[in-house]
């Protein structure tokens, strides 16, 4: 075993950006004396407005976006099962037709004037969060090799020393098998499926997705 070497990052197969951006060298291990300053602490999070966790409307009282309404909820916890409280959870996903409202999305699918596709919320005392959104469509990410991205919801967690970016997928999606990002999850794949848990009062599909944040940063400061 080589001294002082950490993980080797792997580019996904045929992902153009990864082939130019993923380091060739292994990561370096952090000496203990330098560890503390590698743990950012976020104390000043933005104040949220009413309805920011409801992506199905641009604002409360506005028309509902097209597509199937779904609700995603769960808990954010660390590896010891302790709730990550009052942390910012940001999500973003494509619309019903697989297009992001993001100005850089080159996909030619339709935009929905009632769907922005991003929202955020803060976890409560038990680490719970909840979003309403529209079930995202799959989209043709690489027309040159006919490769689709399976339907997915992006999530970003930040606050305190918690930091994670991950994606939630849907079990049974036919595009999963050829998606480099999903393949690279390896044995972690199953943890990235939202679990269907029935229907809400308005017929919306309910999903449970617990978010476990690992690594040493999350648990670095005892608070």
């Amino acid at each position: 075993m080589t001294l002082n070497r950490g993980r080797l990052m792997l580019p996904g197969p045929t992902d153009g950006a990864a082939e130019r951006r993923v380091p060739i060298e292994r990561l370096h291990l952090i000496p203990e004396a330098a560890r503390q300053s590698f743990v950012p602490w976020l104390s000043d999070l933005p104040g949220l407005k009413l309805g920011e966790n409801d992506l199905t409307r641009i604002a409360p009282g506005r028309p509902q976006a097209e597509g199937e309404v779904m609700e995603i909820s769960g808990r954010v916890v660390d590896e010891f099962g302790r709730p990550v409280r009052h942390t910012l959870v940001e999500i973003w996903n494509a619309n019903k037709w697989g297009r992001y409202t993001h100005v850089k999305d080159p996909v030619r699918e339709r935009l929905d004037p009632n769907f922005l596709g991003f929202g955020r919320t803060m976890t409560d005392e038990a680490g719970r969060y909840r979003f309403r959104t529209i079930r995202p469509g799959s989209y043709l990410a690489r027309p040159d090799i006919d490769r689709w991205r399976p339907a997915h919801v992006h999530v970003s967690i930040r606050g305190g020393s918690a930091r994670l970016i991950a994606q939630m997928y849907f079990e049974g999606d036919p595009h999963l098998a050829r998606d480099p990002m999903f393949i690279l999850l390896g044995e972690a794949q199953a943890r990235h499926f939202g679990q269907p848990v029935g229907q809400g009062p308005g017929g919306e599909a309910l999903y449970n997705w617990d978010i476990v944040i690992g690594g040493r940063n999350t648990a670095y400061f005892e608070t």
Partner: protein
Amino acid sequence: MSDASGTTNRLAPLAEDTVGPYYPYSFIDGDRSDLTRLHHGLSVGPQGRQIILRGHLLDSDGQPVEDALVEFWQANAAGILRTPDSDGHPLLDPFFDGFGRLITTLQPFDFKTVKPGPIRTDDGTAARAPHITLTIFSDGITRLVTQVFFDDEAETNEADPLLASLPAALRKRLVARRIVTPSDGPALYEIAIVLRGEGETPFFDDLSS
């Protein structure tokens, strides 16, 4: 669950994933690319020497990486990190929390801040040379973490445990060069962060180390 170290009953974490190309621009709240900005209506701000850290974020072709999310973390001018461990410390700066954030364009990024002080041990010796921690997210990569130092801090750099942990040839890749020192404005430091290939920046494993 058990891991290699024999620790049991831990929950299995989610895997870190790429931020992708479409992180919403509007999630960048306020202007955290400038930590020297005065609070609205106040004429006092953070203590210390104002600097600009100009970063060229490059891929293996030497091309700029656009739409990367870069997060910064640093000590204040007195060398204090604002964490739960420093709560109530007399040298905390009430106008500086040390956390910055921006999304890159095709131009080099300019992060305006104050120069961090050396982090000292309780007996006053410099335990860490002045530095800024960078966390980088972009399409194609998961989280990458490194630290940037300053070329006018040769003496403390020499003794820094992180720089010392690297082969000598790699150390200078983490040191920003001061290229402009105006008498009445921020000093300008410049560094290339090369994600992959020739001149690749050393990145650090803060998950497993």
